[in-house]
């Protein structure tokens, strides 16, 4: 890779800057101050002791929000046989819980968006579709919603519903605390029709006092807890009850940490990683190239000495070879001379022998000659 050190460092800077720019965001700062909601924000108090399970709030909600006709009419109380949750067709539902009161009377609890002071849905949305308004309601902007449904994962109270049946413009839906009506100075639909004092609308501060008074007036009756005062950092829908909340479908294990605080640490780590990783990796790279260079140098050195050794060895071998060759040659010459001499001697002897034989026999020199040829 053709790369100078300076160029590399330049890139590194650019990379770090780009990453940081892409990832930096206002991390939720840790603080020892607990957000207590916008001053003068509104809330609703739901008193389970007073609720008679008439489902008029459901009917009113359906009406003020122009929701589709329910499968069963609101007057039909058999709907209460099954536990229900909020859906795309019902922003609020009332559930019945049997066998909790000594009197045998059933307990009813209304469910809808709790309008958290620091909403999980709002903190989770990557297009800021949810806003906690200064008036109290948490409202949704369908114009930017992508439909990722992370808000539904994030909501600890399992409230938002999705219009899965719509192909082209599905929206997240939930109770709006009747924000438009509040702005007009009207009561929320459900509150306005409640025949008992089971639903009360007002400033959150005042309602906390009302709740405390009701508990104080009947300490024998009420559980000494205002659900929503601190749950998940506090909500704008408050509940008091004469039966344990968890028995009436409200989770008591959610804690008092507001949702944004749960992800604050992970978000704060982002710019750190973006800033430090490139530097560390750059360091590793420079180290590894240096190591490469050193390894390369070592290899060169090793090669050089190897080459030298090889050359020496080759020379020695050559010398030995030539010596050997000389020796061998000498031997061969000697042997050849010896052979030649021996042969000559032999030939001479044979000739002499033949002569002698011929002289002695004198008659069949041919046969003798053949024989001697075969012998040799």
């Amino acid at each position, binding site marked *: 890779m053709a790369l100078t050190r300076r160029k590399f460092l330049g890139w590194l800077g650019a990379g770090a800057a780009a990453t940081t720019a892409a*990832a930096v965001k206002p991390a939720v700062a840790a603080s020892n101050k607990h957000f207590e909601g916008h001053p003068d924000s509104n809330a609703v108090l739901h008193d389970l002791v007073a609720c008679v399970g008439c489902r008029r709030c459901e009917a009113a909600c359906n009406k003020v929000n122009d929701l589709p006709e329910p499968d069963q009419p609101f007057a039909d109380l058999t709907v209460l046989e099954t536990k229900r949750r909020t859906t795309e067709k019902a922003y609020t539902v009332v559930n019945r819980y049997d066998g909790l009161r000594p009197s045998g009377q059933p307990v009813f609890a209304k469910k809808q968006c709790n309008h958290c002071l620091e909403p999980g849905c709002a903190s989770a949305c990557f*297009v800021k579709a949810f806003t906690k308004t200064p008036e109290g309601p948490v409202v949704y902007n369908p114009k930017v919603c992508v439909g990722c449904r992370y808000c539904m994962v994030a909501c600890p109270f399992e409230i938002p519903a999705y219009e899965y049946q719509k192909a082209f413009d599905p929206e997240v839906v939930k109770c709006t605390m009747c924000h438009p009506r509040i702005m007009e100075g009207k009561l929320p639909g459900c509150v306005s029709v409640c025949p008992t004092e089971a639903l009360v609308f007002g400033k959150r501060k005042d309602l906390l006092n009302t709740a405390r008074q009701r508990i104080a007036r009947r300490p024998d009756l009420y559980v000494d807890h205002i659900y929503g005062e601190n749950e998940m950092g506090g909500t704008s829908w408050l509940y008091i009850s004469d039966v344990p909340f968890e028995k009436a479908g409200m989770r008591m294990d959610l804690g008092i940490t507001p949702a944004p605080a749960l992800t604050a640490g992970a978000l704060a780590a982002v710019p750190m990683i973006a800033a430090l990783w490139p530097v560390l990796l750059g360091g590793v790279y420079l180290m590894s190239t240096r190591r490469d260079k050193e390894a390369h140098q070592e290899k060169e050195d090793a090669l050089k000495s190897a080459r030298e050794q090889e050359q020496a060895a080759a020379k020695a071998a050559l010398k030995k070879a030539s010596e050997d060759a000389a020796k061998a040659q000498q031997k061969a010459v000697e042997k050849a001379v010896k052979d030649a001499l021996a042969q000559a001697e032999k030939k001479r002897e044979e000739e002499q022998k033949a002569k002698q034989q011929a002289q002695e026999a004198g008659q069949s020199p041919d046969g003798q000659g053949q024989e001697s040829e075969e012998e040799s």
Partner: protein
Amino acid sequence: MSSQAVRADRGIITPFNVIAGIIVIMGMVLTAWRFAGGLGAVTNLDNHYPWGLWIGLDLMAGVALAAGGFVTSAAVHVFGMKKYSSAVRPAILTGFLGYALVVIALHYDVGRPWRLPYPFIMSQGTTSLLFEVAACVALYLTVLFLEFSPAAMEWLGLKRARLIVVRLMLLLTIFGVVLSTLHQSSLGALFLIAPGKLHPLWYSSYLPVFFFVSAVVAGLSMVIFESSITARYFADKMDETHKQQKTTVAFGFAKAAAFTLAGYFFAKVIGIAVDNNWHYLATGYGAWFLVELLGFVALPAFLFAIGAREQRLGLVKFTAGWSVFGIILNRLNVSLIAFNYHLPASERYFPSWQEIGTSIFLITLGLIAFKFIVTRMPILYSHPDYPDEH
């Protein structure tokens, strides 16, 4: 096996093409169904389960398995481990295709896919970890495309453009590592906001760490797994360097995976200890958690170590597949199986056949693209004009 590869190259009517063809036709039908009828028409998603198989498998597991690209390119380009150089291009290619599929799958899953750029151009929800995931995935897909592009440009003969990208490779690699670290961990951090819904054995403030470390494991395992597949079906495309480095890569990556898995194992145990969740181990979910922890973390760590030490290639390949499966299981556990653990069984989610079919369709698209590219571009061999690049 190479005879199969050759056959696959020749005729149109091959088993691969026939099966892939059927799946693609089914996928097109499902696609039309999904976009004309809405999510409700084809999925089992409901208000309790806003995220289903397409998020759990295609996004969560898909992104983890595509981590091989950043792991391998970092090892070679940043840490200077040149002996693994031939593994870079296949890993980058799988990473690129993997992320491309993730983005395609997201178009199926979100309610209004044409608004997917909104987080960047309309309204930046910077308090959301999903915003960070989206930003990093978008940027990283671009980085992977650039990292992959030299192979395509060698194929197309675009020498000058190729040179520019090759010179940028180090910068791209570092940028890729930063982005991968961020979004791999943030996928785990997405669930930090839902302590009430995810079972305590899986919920931990260390979720981002778990997700990042296990993504490295997934990346390493996928490189081994994938190279054993390519060696089997595309052997005729591999040059000598690739054939020689193949076993070096397998054993080296197996060793690294063994170490990482061991670290992951201890991190998970620490996660339980910190929250003092031991008592949950005696429950049904506890047994399931132990299956994951012992069967798909401890066991593969052990098998990888043995395989690497005794140079048993078969064992290493098997373990790679096993640990890939383990990571998929982990992502499904976090996003589906241990999610909403407090709901009664009747309200739990199980994917519809259309959701499963769509996921199979998308994976098949990836395989087809992989096959198309590997049989044409210099992925498994060095281009004769650029011999030094691997």
